[in-house]
């Protein structure tokens, strides 16, 4: 056991039954990869899990694993191993944990005994991408330092909001996505020695479309309801099957269960705290996985995070049956982030709000979810979700009356976190909100 493990409980209390189920699903994901006689791929999150389900590959997501290590507070020795090789301590902490894990494994020939859930099983292939940030392909390219495993990176450029993309250029983006994913499939076929089962992929993608709709509907229903039946810290658990298990029967069943649970709590007006003095939005930056009980600290002060934008769902899109290519369906299914749909439904202008994959403007969510404050977190090792937060803060101040708090930390590196500073700033933030309430 690593010295930091199990010393303190710093994970958040879970309120929904669904959120409590997620840990078991995650554990199963790692255990299956270790014990089942199936090929394992290490994958960087790119929302293409359907391909692995269709090809009977067990995906393992080092990004998710790093979050797990942070939650259990065992990330430090992995990061130290990567830093000893010269990787800067401002490089993505997910990546430092992943690289350190591979480095320690290479050093001893064994999975470190403090690795949670038995560790990540040896992969037959590595799959990275450029979706949302540069780390996603650089990290996987760098794995070759420790692992002699074929690697495939693919492109998925997403232009920033407001960059003037015409229909014609949107089409050339779509064509590029498809060409890149076809390249990935060819790589997988070659590595696995078998062909893609396109009928199965079609079935898996259509299952994902249903999963996606349930995910969106449950998250939006929860955020729109007072009292809020599912706080953001639960959503930060409940997004996991949609991101890392999409296309599976387990994911569909999970979201059916989640929707039913949220609906039942809404119908019976079951909230989280007795009185919602302040409804908040977690408006950007990844949460501090190592100190998630901060959400409970907020609740103890009469506030609740009703929505988080870090892992927001995609709105369901009507895809005509005439679209028969499962790859196109897979992309279209995730073509409308929640914020865009909400803005469209409410006739809100998106002009000048900026944003990009990784950081959606929180402006979209304030009014629809009746929020009185927005909190964001700048992360020392994540450019993808940090750049733009000050801009979004200014936009929020221009376009709404809610106060905004920006905290500073890191998603996995607890050495960059100050719990006392967070609590002090949150306390001051509540005082600001209280003063505004009195003034109004």
């Amino acid at each position: 056991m690593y010295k930091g493990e199990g010393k303190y409980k710093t994970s958040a209390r879970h309120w929904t039954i669904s959120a409590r189920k997620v840990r078991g699903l995650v554990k199963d994901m790692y255990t299956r990869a270790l014990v089942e006689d199936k090929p394992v791929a290490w994958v960087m999150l790119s929302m293409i899990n359907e391909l692995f389900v269709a090809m009977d590959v067990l995906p393992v997501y080092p990004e998710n694993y790093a979050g797990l290590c942070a939650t259990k507070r065992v990330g430090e020795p992995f990061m130290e191993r990567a830093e000893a090789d010269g990787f800067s301590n401002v490089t993505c902490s997910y990546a430092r944990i992943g690289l350190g894990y591979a480095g320690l494994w290479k050093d001893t020939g064994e999975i470190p005994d403090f690795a949670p859930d038995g560790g990540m099983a040896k992969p037959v292939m590595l799959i990275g991408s450029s979706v949302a940030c540069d780390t996603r392909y650089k990290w996987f390219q760098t794995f070759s330092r420790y692992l002699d495993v074929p690697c495939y990176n693919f492109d998925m450029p997403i232009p920033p909001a407001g960059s003037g993309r015409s229909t014609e250029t949107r089409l050339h983006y779509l064509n590029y996505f498809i060409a890149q994913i076809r390249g990935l499939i060819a790589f997988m076929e070659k590595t696995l020695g078998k062909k893609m089962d396109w009928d199965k992929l079609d079935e898996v993608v259509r299952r994902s479309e249903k999963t996606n709709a349930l995910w969106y509907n449950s998250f939006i229903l929860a955020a729109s309801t007072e009292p809020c039946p599912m706080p953001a810290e639960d959503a930060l658990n409940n997004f996991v099957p949609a991101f890392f298990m999409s296309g599976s029967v387990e994911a569909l069943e999970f979201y059916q269960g989640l929707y039913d649970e949220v609906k039942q709590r809404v119908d019976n007006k079951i909230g989280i705290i007795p009185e919602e003095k302040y409804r908040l939005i977690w408006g950007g930056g990844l949460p501090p996985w190592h100190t998630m009980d901060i959400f409970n600290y907020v609740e103890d002060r009469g506030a609740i995070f009703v929505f988080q934008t870090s892992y927001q769902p995609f709105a369901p899109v009507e895809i005509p049956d005439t679209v028969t290519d499962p790859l196109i369906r897979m992309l279209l299914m995730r073509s409308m982030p929640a914020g865009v749909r909400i803005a469209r439904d409410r006739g809100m202008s998106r002009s000048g709000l900026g944003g990009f994959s990784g950081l959606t403007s929180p402006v979209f969510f304030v009014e629809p979810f009746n929020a009185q404050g927005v909190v964001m977190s700048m992360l020392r090792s994540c450019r993808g979700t940090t750049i733009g937060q000050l801009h979004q803060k200014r936009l929020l101040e221009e376009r709404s009356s809610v106060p905004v708090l920006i905290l500073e930390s890191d998603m996995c590196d607890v050495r960059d976190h100050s719990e006392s500073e967070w609590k002090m700033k949150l306390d001051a933030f509540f005082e600001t909100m209280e003063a505004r309430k009195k003034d109004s």
Partner: protein
Amino acid sequence: MVKGLARAKELYENRGQRAKELRGDGNKVMGYICCFPPVELMTAGGFVPYRITGSLEPITEADAYLETLMCPYVRSCLDLGLKKKYDFVDGMIWPHTCDNIQKTYDIWKHYVPHSYFKYLDVPHMTDPSSYEFFTKEIDVVKESLEEFGGIKITEERLKEAIAAHNENRALLRQLTALRKQDPPLISGTEMTRVMMAVMGIPVDEANELLRDIIEEVSTRKDGPQKKAARLLVYGCEIDDIAFIKLVEDSGANVVIDDLCFGTRYYWDDVSNDGNPVKNLADRYLGKIMCPRTYRRSPGTRQKDLDNRFGYLKDFAKDFNVSGAILYIIRYCDTFEFDVPEVRDYLQDAGIPCLQLEDDYSLTSIGGFKTRIEAFLEMIG
């Protein structure tokens, strides 16, 4: 008017001065950041291409708009923009090169208004589909420049611009070759000034300036003195002489670089046979050796490393270097990932390396001096 190196120094010290003069004469100035927007398009469209840079002056305005936990070079550029130091720039081409630059797109657009602002998506991959995508992106930018500038960028105009910029690159390589001698005929500090000068004036003026400099340097008697070490400097955005001068003042000749304001800008030409837009895509995506561009592994790890960093070994051999300084600006993630790999690759080839991480402000210059001197002593 002064000529040669003196003129380069004048342009370096008065950045933007010539572009402002040209604008005063009725020309339009097109700003761009990073070395990925094709300057040939701007020249062919009748614009004066102007490379946006940062400054070592303290960041005061940008703190309210860009996070401190990101590339300080980009923050410095925005700081100058907010201080209206880029008011002479009519338009801007903003490429998707790395997270730091891409994610600043809408922030710059929002707070530093220009009459024209165009996003150029540069793929990270180098597959046939990536080149096809990038060709289309360049075509889109080309059409919008035509609309903004009112000049049709015909194939003939574009080929002329490519020829002029190829000549520019050839002259820069010719000047660089003069650094092979021991002592080199031009110092790294002087070369940095030349690069900054060249990227702020029209290509024809730059070529004339470079011809003057080559003539002056080739016959000079007051060139750099021979020093204990010949160094390669690897890194990203060095747009000020301070760091290179520090290295040279510490007892080394900087004889070659792999920098965004250095060889990365001019080492490879654009083919002028066939479709010029496709040729631009081939050169800018395929030949600029920036870690933001992913190259598929040709097989083994060693082959992959040779494919990614072999040119550095060639630089080291051709310029007879005795060591390398790997100078990384903090939060430049793609370089941060590559630098341990570059260090080990060069050290395996017998080239000692010093790895430094800085915040672009050079506030830690004293500490660097000590480390550089210790490194020079070690390799001396």
